């Protein structure tokens, strides 16, 4: 009898403890994510996932939002729209999160109507697409940095301020792939160039994974632009273009946007990487004078001691985490519940947010994108700042 009572007692205590545990667990701010950890986009997806996970873990170390912790729940979506949408719906039903992170531009576009009408969840993603930063159409979505168009804007602003020959209109060529990713910013870039007095002398378009770029190179040689901006590539065919241009004796400065500003590309370029430029919304791993980079390095030292480098895609994840946390804190400060619709209302109110040198002073002014970036230049296998933070709005 006694042993039965003891057993019952133990069971009851266990139930209470576990129940309390469950109750505690319920009191978190849930962030769900469909991450492209496998599939075509895995090269970046796995780092983005790690960056977001670490950023949130770091925020929790700092005490979360007034002691309420964040909970990061993710699934691999394999860069497959159907799977990503399935995973999104599953996680919405299971966790009812206030924030979600999506794997692709396509996922954002597919879910936009339902997020507006049904799910009401704050939505960040791997995408830098202009469409997703349109506040009027997609108030719940934000872009973790400047959109591709804004990145082009930043580069053109830099070019306008740094003409190669004084008193002469700088010339630029756009070199892009025939994909949504490649074409996204081009119309805006043309407009911006016209406005800032930069002449677009050539536009070279290649198929995805193009190997033979001779005709584009010859055309580039004919126009001999001061600058040439790549869009819609990750690595190839950029090394062969830069090498080819050098062989032709062109003095063109080549530039890239976020995905072509990686260590992966710079390593491939080798000696040709000297002087390669481009825009990045964040600081790099080795810019140890940036306070937030110090935080990131310190966090990695403690949690991932064998890590020697974190690429720019990791920084994208980290920054998205910072935005999630910032918006949640703003909600809390205003005494609002942390829900998707309240979080969305906070986006336009982010003004001159000090990211500790990581992404400049961030404001979501006219769109749900930051419209700020820095121009970097390749020096000795590293990207070093070539400008201060350039603001578009």
């Amino acid at each position, binding site marked *: 009898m006694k042993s039965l009572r003891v057993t019952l007692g133990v069971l009851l205590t266990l139930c209470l403890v576990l129940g309390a545990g469950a109750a505690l667990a319920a009191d978190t701010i849930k962030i769900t994510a469909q991450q492209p950890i496998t599939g075509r986009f895995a090269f970046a997806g796995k780092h983005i996932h790690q960056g977001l996970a670490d950023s949130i873990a770091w925020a929790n170390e700092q005490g979360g939002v007034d002691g309420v912790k964040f909970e990061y729940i*993710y699934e691999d979506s394999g860069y497959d729209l159907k799977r990503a949408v399935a995973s999104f*719906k599953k996680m919405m039903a299971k966790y009812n999160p206030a924030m979600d992170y999506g794997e692709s531009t396509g996922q954002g576009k597919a879910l936009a109507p*339902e997020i507006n009408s049904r799910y009401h969840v704050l939505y960040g993603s791997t995408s830098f697409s202009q469409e997703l930063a349109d506040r009027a159409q997609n108030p719940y979505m934000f872009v973790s940095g400047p959109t591709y168009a804004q990145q082009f804007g930043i580069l053109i602003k830099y070019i306008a301020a740094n003409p190669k020959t004084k008193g002469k209109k700088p010339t630029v060529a756009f070199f892009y792939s025939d994909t949504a990713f490649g074409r996204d910013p081009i119309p805006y870039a043309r407009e911006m160039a016209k406005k800032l007095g930069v002449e677009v002398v050539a536009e070279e378009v290649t198929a995805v994974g193009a190997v033979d770029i001779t005709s584009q190179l010859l055309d580039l040689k004919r126009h001999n632009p001061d600058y040439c901006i790549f869009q819609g590539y990750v690595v190839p065919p950029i090394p062969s273009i830069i090498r080819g241009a050098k062989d032709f004796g062109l003095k063109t400065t080549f530039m890239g946007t976020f995905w072509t500003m990686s260590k992966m590309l710079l390593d491939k370029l080798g000696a040709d990487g000297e002087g390669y430029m481009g825009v990045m919304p964040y600081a790099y791993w080795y810019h140890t004078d940036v306070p937030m980079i110090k935080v990131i390095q310190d966090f990695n030292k403690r949690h991932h001691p064998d890590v020697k480098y974190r690429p720019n895609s990791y920084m994208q994840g980290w920054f998205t985490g910072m935005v999630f946390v910032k918006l949640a804190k703003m909600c809390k400060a205003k005494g609002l519940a942390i829900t998707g619709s309240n979080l969305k209302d906070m986006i336009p109110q982010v003004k001159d947010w000090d990211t500790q040198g990581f992404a400049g002073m961030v404001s979501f002014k006219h769109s749900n994108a930051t419209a700020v970036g820095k121009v970097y230049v390749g020096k000795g296998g590293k990207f070093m700042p070539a400008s201060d933070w350039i603001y578009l709005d």
Partner: protein
Amino acid sequence: MRMGDFKQTYAADEAVFRSGTVRFWLVVLFLAIAAFPFMVGPYLLYMANLTGVAIIAAVGLNILTGAAGQISLGHAAFVGIGAYTSAILTTKLGLPFLLCLPLSGLSAAFFGVIVGAPSMRMKGLYLCIATLAAQVIFDFIFVHWTSVTGGIRGINVPSAELFGYKLDTEFKLYFVTIPIMIAAVTAARNLFRTRVGRAFIAIRDRDISAELMGINLFQYKLYAFAASSFYAGVAGCLQVYLLRIVTPEHFPLHESIRYLAMIIVGGLGSVLGSIFGAIFMTMVPEALQSGLALFQGLDDKLMSYLFPLQTVVFGLLIVVFLVFEPHGLAEMWRRVKNYFRLWPFEH
């Protein structure tokens, strides 16, 4: 154990559902299908819809490849044609869903006939490459005919409406997708019992003999292409209303191969096989994913190895199934059924 099940007429022998037992379980199945949406959440309903669409497309491909023996590597392109047709008709002409559905099927069937035309002179692997060309060409058109297809950005589609009733949730769509799927499956099952269906099978088994028996090979091959593409088109239309967006990225070559895998894993030439194959190819990756979710929170490094492993396990499963049962899941199902038919008196 089933007893007293004797057939006394040819008609009874040819019936699709041959015994009371079968009919009983069929009623149970229909009741389960009808009750399903009331018991599960949006995620499983979404998966059910996705599976329904995959079944329609797979059954279509099975008509062409499984029954008529014409291997097609362009099935995803026909799904794409259906999808684009309905997206364009809805957004540009404002046609209602009920009209878009058959029109998507018909437009896919029309292009199917054109693509099937080389089958007059080619067969086997050669025809397979011709259909591959169709896949590439349509893919190119989806991407580059920007004024109509919206190019790479694709077309956003409003939710379907049926008699003034908005089909904007998975729950509502379920009651459209699943009945259409059942109708499509029933039609396909009956097709194989008609002259046309028998002709398909004759062509697959030996085209010269079929021709000697008076079957016009070209005509019937085109029928097979038309029927198969019609199914694909209908599946494409339903997929558009499910995903609410269509872009060229949804219909790549590997999607065509996925449909082929469905019918091979399920069982070539069998309608039931297409159903099993579609369920297998849609649900198994999800099941693996859910299995993996149990490990979440464990070591990051371990997870980085486990994620790619999903794909490997999925591939292995397909290989293992085919090694142990080359005739697919449908054959496995038949054997299990036969075992229980005499159970517990096996001999």
